[in-house]
């Protein structure tokens, strides 16, 4: 029974998404509780899944009993299972937050809205478990299509952002598919385990190198690496308050996970193109993204846009971690990925709450928070500590292991990039806090609506999770080092 868990985790949100229109036809009010219940069940299943993987090792799930490489295979190893727990728990909190912050103009369209959210979650589940390159493409598109629609759901400015996201995202997906085609032409298989045995000896082939480059550019657009990030800030800023946390915390991280899968499980950590290690290139790209993203965040005037650029910079930090190519760096990078997912969700919950309660959009508006909502300011302080990297938050330990890995491998450029991006992150949070604590603008006379309980719960849970990740960093790192490392590292 327990070996069916990966399929069960996927089918829960997927079947619920199909049933949603039937339930919602008569009772649109049931959609929100139903989505929460389903994702809660999914979280329970994924926690059970981690326990099973810890006890009995990885699960390789062959659909309808067709053994790979002929059949379609899902790989449920340490990495996939722990990311799956992160995804389902964050989706749960984001859904709790989504109820009151969803656009009020939706009306009857609330039914397809929750259907799309569940499809987004199931698509990301598919990417996490996929053991086959083409499967990743399909689920990437399932989640991306729901994402485009959800960004544009509120209308107005969001439509143009959604359109740009769609054009760039589809172009990225086409490039990825082209890369998959190249790999298929060179090896005749799409199964990752099978490819992993054939690709390393083919690294001199132009078809494989070309395919690798196309795939990485395609996924690079999906996860918003610095030269390819154009769609992200607009999409996150104009998306409904309820949707930004899903996009910011999960969509880009899952694309990054697909990249990690291909890099370490298919191409191999030691792959070289013309004597240049591929991992080294990725690490440098990550360093560029980390520094430039944090710098761009510093120049923004809108709160959500600033957080969006901060998220781009953290994608770079994760890439530095996994790109170092030693166990400490890899585990640190994956741990930072989990942390970053939580931090991004928390920041966008808070932006949504500030928007809901005080109508805060730009940084100038943040002065309205002063002396008004201590819970909000307190939560922002915890998030800022983690984004900058101060103990005892999770962000500190993530950065610590990344820097430790870089020092072990003597990659001093990576260390410098981490430090510079940390300083820039500190600078943009100082900009925020200056508005809250030091502004001379009067904070009275602002009409405020008390935020509903569910928003407070989501902000509180996410802030608590940041601290808990820091306190329990040792067991999580131990698990990652023991059972999430790729072969040959």
């Amino acid at each position, binding site marked *: 029974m327990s070996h069916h868990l990966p399929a069960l985790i996927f089918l829960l949100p997927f079947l619920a998404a199909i049933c949603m229109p039937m339930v919602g036809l008569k009772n649109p009010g049931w959609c929100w509780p139903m989505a929460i219940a389903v994702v809660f069940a999914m979280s329970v299943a994924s926690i059970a899944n981690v326990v099973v993987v810890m006890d009995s090792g990885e699960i390789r799930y062959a659909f309808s009993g067709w053994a790979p490489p002929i059949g379609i295979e899902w790989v449920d190893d340490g990495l996939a299972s722990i990311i799956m727990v992160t995804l389902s728990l964050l989706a749960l909190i984001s859904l709790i937050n989504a109820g009151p912050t969803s656009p009020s103009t939706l009306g009857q369209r609330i039914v397809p809205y929750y259907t799309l959210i569940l499809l987004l979650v199931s698509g990301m589940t598919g990417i996490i478990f996929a053991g086959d390159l*083409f499967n990743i*493409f*399909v689920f990437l*598109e399932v989640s991306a*299509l729901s994402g*485009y*629609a959800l960004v*544009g759901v509120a*209308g*107005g*400015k969001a*439509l*143009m952002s*959604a*359109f740009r996201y*769609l*054009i760039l995202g*589809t*172009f990225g*997906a*086409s490039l990825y*598919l*082209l890369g*998959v*085609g190249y790999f*298929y*032409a060179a090896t*005749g298989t*799409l199964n990752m385990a099978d490819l992993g045995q054939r690709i390393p000896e083919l690294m001199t082939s132009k078809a494989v190198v070309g395919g690798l480059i196309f795939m990485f550019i395609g996924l690079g657009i999906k996860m918003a690496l610095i030269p390819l990030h154009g769609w992200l800030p607009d999409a996150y800023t104009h998306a409904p308050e309820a949707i930004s946390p899903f996009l910011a915390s999960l969509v880009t991280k899952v694309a990054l996970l697909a990249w990690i899968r291909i890099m370490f499980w298919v191409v191999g950590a030691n792959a070289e193109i013309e004597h240049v290690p591929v991992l080294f290139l990725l690490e440098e790209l990550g360093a560029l993204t980390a520094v430039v993203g944090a710098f761009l965040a510093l120049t923004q005037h809108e709160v959500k846009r600033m957080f969006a650029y901060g998220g781009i910079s953290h994608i770079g930090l994760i890439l530095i971690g996994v790109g170092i190519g030693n166990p400490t760096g890899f585990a640190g990078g994956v741990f930072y990925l989990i942390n970053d997912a939580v931090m991004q969700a928390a920041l966008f919950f808070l932006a949504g709450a500030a928007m809901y309660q005080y109508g805060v959009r730009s940084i100038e508006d943040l002065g309205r928070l002063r002396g008004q909502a201590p819970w909000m300011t307190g939560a922002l302080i915890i998030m800022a500590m983690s984004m900058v990297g101060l103990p005892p938050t999770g962000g500190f330990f993530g950065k610590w292991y990344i820097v430790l890995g870089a020092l072990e491998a003597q990659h001093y450029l990576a260390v410098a990039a981490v430090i510079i991006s940390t300083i820039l992150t500190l600078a943009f949070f100082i900009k925020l806090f200056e508005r809250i604590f030091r502004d001379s603008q009067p904070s009275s006379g602002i009409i405020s609506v008390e935020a509903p309980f569910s928003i407070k719960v989501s902000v509180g849970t996410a802030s608590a999770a940041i601290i808990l990740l820091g306190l329990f960093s040792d067991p999580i790192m131990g698990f990652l080092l023991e059972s999430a490392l790729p072969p040959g590292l």
Partner: protein
Amino acid sequence: MFEHLDAWLHRPNFIVFVILFSWGLYIMVVHHNLVKKLIGMYLVQTSVIFYLVTLGVKSGATVPVLLSTTAPIRVEAYANPLPHVVTLTAIVVGVATLGVSLALVAAMYRKYGTLDEDEILKRLE
């Protein structure tokens, strides 16, 4: 020089793919009309699908269904179904993307009464 040209001409399908892909990309980048951008996007998708289809071509081969269980199996008589299945799924994904994008464009047209990107951006400000 001419040897390379000869090698290229042996794979006309790749040349067609490159032309279609670059043409689609050009349309996507250059045109300001949103529907024309979508046409370019669809051309890019179609070119990749075209490339995948040409990978699966095998002359003299038929559908991979065994007609008799007793006759010896000749591998060269059957086409590999995998590229075809991949292509089919990619077409479905492409159609779904086009549907979503046309819905977005229709919503923008209803709101702004134009399909020109510059015009819409001007009104957004």
